[in-house]
């Protein structure tokens, strides 16, 4: 709050500028107005005539005219009478200076000013950027570094996921292409590039993105991100059953705490609820998806399978229900009693011969 000191100082100067002249006791200068002016002009004409600047007869005519104006001015009398001295008036004026000036200034500044804002000259900001840790300045620094050294693998590796994070998808695509150029083809960077392409297309897995994911999966079939987006591609083709199967596959061997598992389950839930996307069904769909995932991990729960089939049937997803029956039969293969119960339930639901 160091700024209030100079502000007070400036205000003081402004107030003084008003108060000082009010304190003076001197009388008004007697200008005499026109009278003095024409007297001065007479002198001037004489001077000019003496120096030969004007002809004597011209000077005479000019003097006569000026003298005539002088007489007229003297007749009309001086104007500069001084008004009666009034202490009240001076106090009133002093009050304007003493009160109104600071009040106007502080009121306006209070609304419009930003007294807590420091200057931010460019040079200082640049220096600050070098030590700052916020994401923008970090990115800027890495970008400056990469502009100078475009072969810096580490730099690209740092910046590519950040670009995805801050929604600069086209820059992310370029960054992954740089990584592929520098490191050679590899599944992780192909997947990254594909993801950036999908996000740039607002979630649509374009044919270009598909090719990229295929390349990734050709190099490494376990690449989770590539598998995930390939499943979404199936969804977008309308192959719900196929997509669900892929998701289930992915959940295998993923610990529940893994963030990707959550994303996959959400995706499944959305897929299941997609037929009737009303608010309530969204919740049901979530539960069904959870159940489905659980049974995929541990298929020994006979009643669970029956519930799953019924749920799909209720949701009107016949294909999923039939798919669940096939999986349940597979899971119950070792238990004839379980198999019988499943088949009975399927019978009851009207399918599964």
């Amino acid at each position: 709050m160091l700024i209030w000191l100079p502000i007070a100082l400036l205000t003081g100067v402004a107030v003084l500028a008003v108060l000082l002249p009010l304190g003076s006791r001197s009388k008004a200068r007697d200008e005499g107005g026109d009278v003095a002016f024409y007297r001065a002009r007479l002198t001037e004409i004489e001077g000019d005539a003496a120096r030969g600047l004007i002809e004597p007869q011209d000077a005479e005519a000019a003097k006569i005219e000026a003298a005539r104006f002088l007489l007229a001015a003297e007749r009309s009398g001086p104007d500069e009478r001084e008004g009666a001295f009034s202490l009240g008036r001076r106090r009133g004026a002093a009050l304007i200076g003493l009160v109104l000036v600071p009040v106007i200034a502080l009121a306006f500044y209070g609304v419009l000013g930003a007294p807590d804002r420091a200057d931010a000259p460019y040079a200082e900001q640049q220096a600050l950027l070098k030590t700052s840790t916020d994401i923008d300045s970090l990115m800027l620094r890495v970008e400056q570094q990469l502009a100078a050294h475009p072969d810096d693998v580490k730099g690209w590796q740092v910046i590519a996921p950040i670009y995805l994070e801050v929604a600069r998808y086209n820059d992310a695509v370029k960054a992954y292409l740089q990584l592929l150029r520098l490191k050679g083809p590899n599944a992780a960077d192909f997947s990254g590039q594909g993801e950036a392409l999908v996000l740039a297309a607002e979630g649509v897995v374009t044919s270009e993105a598909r090719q990229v994911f295929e390349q990734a999966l050709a190099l490494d079939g376990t690449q989770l991100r590539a598998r995930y987006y390939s499943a979404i591609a199936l969804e977008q083709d309308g192959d719900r059953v196929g997509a669900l199967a892929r998701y289930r596959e992915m959940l295998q061997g993923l610990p529940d705490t893994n963030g990707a598992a959550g994303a996959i389950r959400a995706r499944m839930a959305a897929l299941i609820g997609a037929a009737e996307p009303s608010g309530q069904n969204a919740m049901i769909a979530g539960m069904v998806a959870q159940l489905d995932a659980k049974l995929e991990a541990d298929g020994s729960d006979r009643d669970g399978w029956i519930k799953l089939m019924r749920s799909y049937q209720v949701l009107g997803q016949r294909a999923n229900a039939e798919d669940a029956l096939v999986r349940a039969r597979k899971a119950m293969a070792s238990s004839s009693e379980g198999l019988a119960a499943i088949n009975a339930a399927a019978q009851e639901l009207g399918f599964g011969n």
Partner: protein
Amino acid sequence: MTVELGHYALILALALAFVQMTVPLWGSLARDPALMRVGRMAAWASFGFVTFSYAALTMAYVNSDFSVLNVVMNSHSAKPLIYKISGVWSNHEGSMMLWVLILVLFAALVAWRGGGMPERLLASVLSVQGAIAFAFILFVVVTSNPFERVFPIPVEGQGLNPVLQDPGLAIHPPLLYLGYVGFSIAYSFAVGALIHGRIDAVFARFVRPWTLLAWLFLTLGISMGSYWAYYELGWGGWWFWDPVENASLMPWLMGTALVHCTVVMEKRDALKVWTILLAILTFSLSLLGAFIVRSGVLTSVHSFASDPTRGVFILGILTFFVGGGLALFAWRAPMLRQGGLFAAVSREGALIVNNLFLAATCAAVLIGTLYPLALEAISGAAISVGAPFFNATAVPLVVMLLAFLPIGQTLAWKRGNLLGAAQRMMVALGISILVSLVMLSMVHGGPVAAPLGVGLGAWLILGSVSEIMSRSWRRGATLRIFVARAFGLPRAAWGAALAHAGIGVTVIGIAATGWGVENLGVLKPGERIEIGAYSLVLDKSFVRNGQGFREDVARFSVMENGGFAGAVETGKRVHAGRYMPTTEAGILTLGLGQVYASVNDFHADGSVSLKAYWKPLVLLIWLGSLLMAAGGGLALIDRRSRIGIVVRSKAAALLAGRPA
């Protein structure tokens, strides 16, 4: 902290302007000298605070402080220093700061030089000037604050419009504003005197130098703006009757009338009421110009990004000061004492004719400028009143005025002799007609108006020469006495002659545009295009990278009678961060004429389409205006118009043993 203190200093100046507006006026009405003296101190302090504020803003530009929104929007850290400084006034907010700075500068100058003025007049003048300053500082602070901060602080600024990255930006606006705002002093004097109720010769003597100063700067400002538009916009013209150009021309025409009128008022104590009215109208037209540029009623090279609140605010300022001034005039003018009498044929009479012509010209320009705007506002129909309208209205009026000028200039004060004046001018007239005839017979082609225009220019120049000669020469006098008398003439006489000759020079330059040649062509390297006596040969086209831009350049050799006369380069520039390419015209000055080349397009096959002009004597247009301004300067330093003359003369009177 500097930025915030600059902001606070501007607000303090606002508070002080309020004091300057109210307290001295109160003092003047109550005849209280202490209250009146507050005006001078407040004017000085306001000037100090606004200067500080302006310096703080400039510092923010120089240091590229991107926490200030105005700097972010209009600057870039990589910009050359000169454009960081001139960039301050490249935009609406910053240019209003410059406007306000000049406004308070003039008030401070009046407070400083006005020591010899009657105190009540000075107090009223400062009060009116304070009111104008208050209105404009309030406008800046409330609607156009250049100290607005941003957070988070952007890393880089958005740069300056490339058209403005030119030395022209450093010169044209400050001169123009000195002119526009300078006329506020004439207004303040007029309104101050109306409040004061006394308009006398003292008033005229004090108002004249300020008017002259403003006129001088406005002349330079318009002329430099014209030259800038000529070489930067690449359109080949020097005046486009653009509404904003007209907005500066109108106060100039009115101000020219005012400058002449104050002479009559000072010398002959006549035309007082008319002078007061002209002073009010001249500044009103300056305000109108500000309104047209900043309200968004039109778009042109000059218009600033505008929002409606600003337009309404300026309209309010305009209405208050024009309406207030005229209302006061209507109320007080009948009470003014009329002054000296004169015959119809006299210098005074001639100056009235001059005033009428100038006012009529101004009215023509005003109609041509406002009618399309008004029509668009009412019916939504966009029409354009271009050069044909002005050529048919304003130009003939000006030609008549100029034809009459040399005769009026030579008439005597009070009672003139038209026949005698005509006799004195016979030689000048004879030579001018001869010049026209010689031109007509020698030069083939081109409009008939061109030789006549050159004759008119010659008439103006010779008329001025003749004026100086006839005032210095007496029958039988030796050459030595003649020279001594010529140098002994008042500087104002020399100034008037120089300014009038300057108009002649400009008129010749304008007339010579009739002989200009232009040609269009698509050229491959090695091909040529003819313009009059010259031909342009395309040497090559290439790409050049400059500071912050990339330019396609076409390089031409200018050939004259088969010999090489010089080279011109013209190109299209694309500045970093901007997509609109700008055209860089190529200009080669040959004597007083110029070869002007402006590229339209670069084609894929390496050919270049080009517009090329030969402009004979074109530089005279601007040289003439420089002479006019120099004439104004000479009149300004005439000892009679020195501002403190009354005090000094009083001292001289005391020395001479006379009561003052």
